[in-house]
């Protein structure tokens, strides 16, 4: 309880200072008077009695001070004093203070922004029960290097049955979109398909009704769904009556049985999910996708909660002992014996799963690490910069410091004063920084995946605020400690005596700091130059198709689309050409099959990308045909199967001959032939290579086949080439299609978004590395400018004397520019090897350029030099205009 008493006393001293001081004063006065009264009684004259009494007390003020410093928490008081002192100092110099605050706010804000994205993407726990216990299961087949993380429905159920090691196992799909609602008034809603153990494993409670359980995930169970809290709010105004209501998914009725807890939608980080369905209900809502439940489809990720006391090793050991038996039942019997054997010998890998899953993690791990390093360096430059400013300011404070030393302030107290001043600034700046970060991390999120909406909660949370506080303290110490040590050095008397001399000396620290700033910002400029060139290289890449002016509409259910619609669309004004295909370049989805020249035996693995395409596909996408013909209405479901192959395939299999008229053999289901068997298809044309499989991949062999000749269900995307405004044509297209296809949600998107999505990572790097490099360059040049301006001001008299003795204006300018050149050159000498050393780390993020590209480095050096000299010229000119008479009268 002592602490409470002390706290109360501390608060009284802080907030009732006047009262406490008055009381102390009164008490001591009473002491003096009582003592004096006693002395009078002893026979002394009143004056003498009083004098003695006061003597007894040995100074009222000293006693007061002893009371003040002896009490607990006196340091809080001293710090409060220091803070008041610091604030007064800063308010006296508002221009400098604002400049420092702005620099720091940018530096700290940039770090916070990158950290909050890292936090949201990589570090945040799922809002579930004890997320730290959850493990994600991965599997490494005997013949594979890397484990995979998706499993078939059967495997998940077999693993979920291992109740000796697991309290629960959850299988879940990625976000799938369903058309929800009544015909003519449908919307696309993200849905997650889950196994029966999903909610139990995650330990979630319903906000209303009940959640899904094992019973619901059984064949022939009535189709039910749980909706998310957010969907309940938006769609059902939080009415309790939602329970038992029916929603139509793809027109099929599903009963809502519950609402999940607020804040949770699915373990897929960044993707919301409004409706959660048991996997057993999939055949009901989407009969065409029923095959997903088969043993050959690996599409579910697994999170498991090991039983209490189960270590990762013991779980792995147990799984290793039971898996071969389980594999016998759950691995597709249609797979080859080799493949089945490799699967049965697979080992399980357990990784922390409490942070959920997102493909963005693998994509952005490296870029975020590089960006973190970049913003860290920006902040470092800011620190050097401000340390320089503080040093310069500190020299003008030398007299004040000396006086404080002389009247007995310890060196420690002075250093503390400096550190308090600097951390105070960095804390104020970090408040702005957090706001800045909030805005900029939202911009960043919108850039990382333009083709898909991502929902990440970027409101500053405790992690982020803690991180910001930490870097604010580190920053404050970093830029405060140098000036503090430098300035509080030396003893009081010598400083006081030699103030004049010391004010004339110049610290070697400041040029050192400027050199470091130049060096670090040059490293950042080189990085930015590399990333910008990478983006340019991708943008200038010959993709093999024209991505501007093309609109896409994807239909998950191709059966609903009638081919005659394409002809009608060609009639809409502004439409140049229209076609259909199974997938479009860079959509992310690929269909691959084995394909070789007829007569060769088909390999086990897939060797080519397949694309089912309609008539005029090549005209619409502007993919040039190198020889032969494209598809037309002549290629019908009943005509002989034909194919157009890509140049890469032609090069590989038909080198030196004309492939047109020859045949390829494939298992793809083309033409009126039995499934599961290889058939021969006639090559009728050769098309230019495209980057369909990914911008950074070499041209991959591709086979185009007529869409109408495909057997089985395939997705369908309509592509329409437009002349004129994309937005106008997009709404015209939607207005045309929606009434004709009431059971589908028509979403029109430009192909260019897909292309941009493929270079999102590079765009993020180019934009942010560029912006931060410019910021760093500015800071370094301000540092250089500040140093030279300070130098000129300090040497006004000297320059005046030189000029009066006949020094030319040009000589004066040359002298100052020369000293700037030395600093810049030194910076380059430090930076280039550093950039060289760091280059290997970023090479994998680059495209079409080496990290040690001399042109990129040279460009950055040149830019640094140019801007550096520009910054140096201003103080140099000012020096050359010094009027010798004025300068000499100065003192």
């Amino acid at each position, binding site marked *: *309880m*002592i602490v*409470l*008493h*002390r706290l109360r*006393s501390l608060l009284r001293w802080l907030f009732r200072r006047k009262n406490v001081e008055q*009381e*102390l004063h*009164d*008490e*001591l006065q*009473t*002491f003096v*008077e*009582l*003592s004096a*009264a*006693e002395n009078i009684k002893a026979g002394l004259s009143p004056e003498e009695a009083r004098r003695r009494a006061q003597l*007894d*007390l*040995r*100074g009222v003020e*000293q*006693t007061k001070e*002893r*009371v003040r410093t*002896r*009490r*607990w928490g006196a340091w809080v008081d001293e710090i409060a004093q220091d803070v008041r002192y610091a604030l007064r100092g800063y308010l006296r110099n508002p221009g400098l203070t604002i400049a420092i605050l702005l620099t720091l706010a940018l530096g700290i804000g940039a770090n916070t922004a990158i950290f909050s994205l890292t936090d949201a993407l990589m570090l945040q726990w799922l809002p579930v029960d004890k997320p730290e216990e959850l493990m994600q299961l991965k599997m490494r087949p005997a013949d594979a290097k890397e484990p995979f993380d998706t499993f078939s429905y059967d495997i998940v159920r077999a693993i979920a049955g291992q109740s000796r090691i697991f309290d629960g196992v959850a299988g879940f799909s990625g976000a799938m979109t369903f058309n929800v609602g009544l015909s003519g008034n449908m919307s696309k809603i993200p849905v997650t398909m889950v196994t029966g153990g999903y909610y139990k494993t995650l330990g979630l409670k319903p906000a209303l009704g009940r959640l899904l359980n094992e019973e619901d995930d059984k064949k022939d169970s009535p189709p039910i769904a749980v909706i998310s809290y957010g969907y309940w709010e938006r769609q059902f105004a939080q009415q309790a009556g939602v329970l038992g209501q029916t929603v139509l998914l793809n027109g099929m009725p599903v009963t809502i049985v519950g609402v999940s807890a607020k804040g949770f939608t699915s373990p897929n980080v960044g993707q919301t999910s409004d409706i959660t369905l048991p996997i057993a209900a999939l055949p009901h809502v989407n009969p065409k996708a029923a095959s997903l439940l088969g043993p050959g489809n690996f599409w579910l990720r697994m999170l498991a909660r090991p039983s209490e006391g189960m270590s990762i090793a013991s779980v792995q050991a147990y799984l290793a002992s039971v898996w071969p038996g389980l594999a016998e039942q759950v691995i597709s019997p249609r797979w080859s014996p080799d493949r089945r054997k490799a699967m049965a010998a697979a080992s399980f890998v357990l990784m922390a799963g409490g942070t959920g899953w997102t493909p963005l993690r693998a994509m952005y791990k490296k870029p975020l690490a590089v960006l973190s390093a970049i913003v860290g360096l920006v902040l470092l430059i800011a620190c050097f910069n401000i340390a320089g400013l503080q040093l310069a300011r500190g020299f003008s404070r030398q007299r004040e410091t000396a006086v404080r030393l002389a009247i007995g302030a310890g060196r420690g107290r002075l250093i503390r004063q400096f550190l308090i001043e600097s951390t105070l600034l960095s804390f104020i700046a970090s408040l702005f920084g957090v706001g800045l970060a909030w805005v900029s991390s939202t911009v960043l999120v919108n850039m990382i995946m333009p083709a898909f909406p991502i929902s990440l909660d970027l409101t500053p949370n405790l992690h982020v605020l803690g991180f910001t506080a930490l870097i604010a303290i580190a920053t404050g110490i970093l830029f405060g400690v140098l000036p503090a040590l430098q300035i509080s050095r030396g003893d009081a008397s010598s400083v006081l005596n030699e103030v004049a001399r010391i004010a004339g000396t110049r610290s070697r620290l400041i040029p050192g700091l400027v050199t470091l700033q130049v060096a670090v910002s040059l490293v950042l400029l080189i990085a930015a130059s590399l990333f910008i060139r990478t983006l340019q290289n991708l943008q200038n890449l010959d993709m093999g198709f024209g991505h501007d002016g093309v609109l896409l509409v994807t239909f998950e259910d191709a059966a609903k689309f009638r081919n005659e619609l394409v002809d009608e669309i060609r009639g809409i004004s502004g439409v140049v050409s229209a076609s259909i295909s199974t997938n479009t370049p860079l959509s992310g989805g690929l269909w691959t099959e084995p394909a070789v020249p007829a007569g060769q035996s088909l390999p086990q693995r897939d060797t080519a990308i397949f694309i089912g395409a309609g008539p005029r596909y090549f005209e619409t996408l502007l993919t040039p045909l190198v020889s032969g013909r494209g598809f037309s209405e002549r290629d019908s479901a009943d005509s002989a199967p034909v194919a157009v192959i890509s140049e890469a395939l032609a090069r590989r299999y038909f080198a030196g001959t004309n492939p047109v008229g020859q045949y390829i053999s494939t298992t793809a289901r083309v033409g009126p032939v039995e499934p599961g068997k290889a058939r021969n298809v006639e090559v009728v044309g050769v098309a230019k290579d495209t980057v369909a499989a990914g911008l950074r991949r070499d041209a991959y062999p591709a086979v185009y086949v007529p869409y109408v000749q495909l057997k089985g269900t395939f997705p369908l995307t309509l592509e329409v080439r437009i002349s004129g405004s994309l937005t106008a044509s997009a709404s015209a297209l939607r207005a045309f299609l929606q009434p004709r296809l009431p059971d589908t949600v028509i979403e029109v998107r430009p192909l260019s978004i897909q292309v941009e999505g493929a270079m999102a990572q590079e765009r993020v790097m180019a934009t942010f590395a560029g912006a931060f490099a410019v910021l760093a360059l500015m800071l370094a040049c301000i540092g250089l400018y500040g140093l030279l301006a300070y130098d000129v001001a300090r040497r006004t008299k000297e320059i005046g004397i030189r000029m009066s003795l006949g020094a030319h204006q040009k000589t004066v300018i040359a002298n100052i520019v020369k000293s700037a050149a030395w600093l810049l050159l030194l910076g380059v000498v430090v930076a280039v090897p550093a950039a060289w050393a760091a280059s290997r780390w970023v090479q994998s993020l680059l495209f079409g350029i080496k990290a040690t590209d001399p042109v990129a480095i040279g460009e950055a050096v040149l830019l640094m030099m140019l801007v550096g000299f520009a910054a140096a010229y201003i103080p140099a000119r000012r020096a050359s205009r010094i009027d010798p008479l004025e300068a000499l009268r100065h003192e």
Partner: protein
Amino acid sequence: LKKLDIPQGTLELMILTILNREPLHGYGISQKLATLSHDVFQVNPGSLFPALYALEEDGKLKAEWRPSENNRNAKYYKLTAAGRKYLDQHRDRWKRVAFAITNVLEGA
């Protein structure tokens, strides 16, 4: 007789002992200490008041302002329950320490 310095750490104990009998103000405490120690100890106000404030801060003492014997308003210190408990614990310890020191010095 030359006055002696108060041994380290015993001033608090003596203040508490004095206040255990009756509430007193600062001057009263210093007088009482002189009397009780037969003028061996004389506490300097520069030590007394910091000690009093520290004890009050720890909740071992409570203070109130009331008129003194010659009608001046004075700050009277009073022992709290926590102060009494502390005193009981530490007085016995000090007695044993003092007894032991005496024994050692007299070579008994």
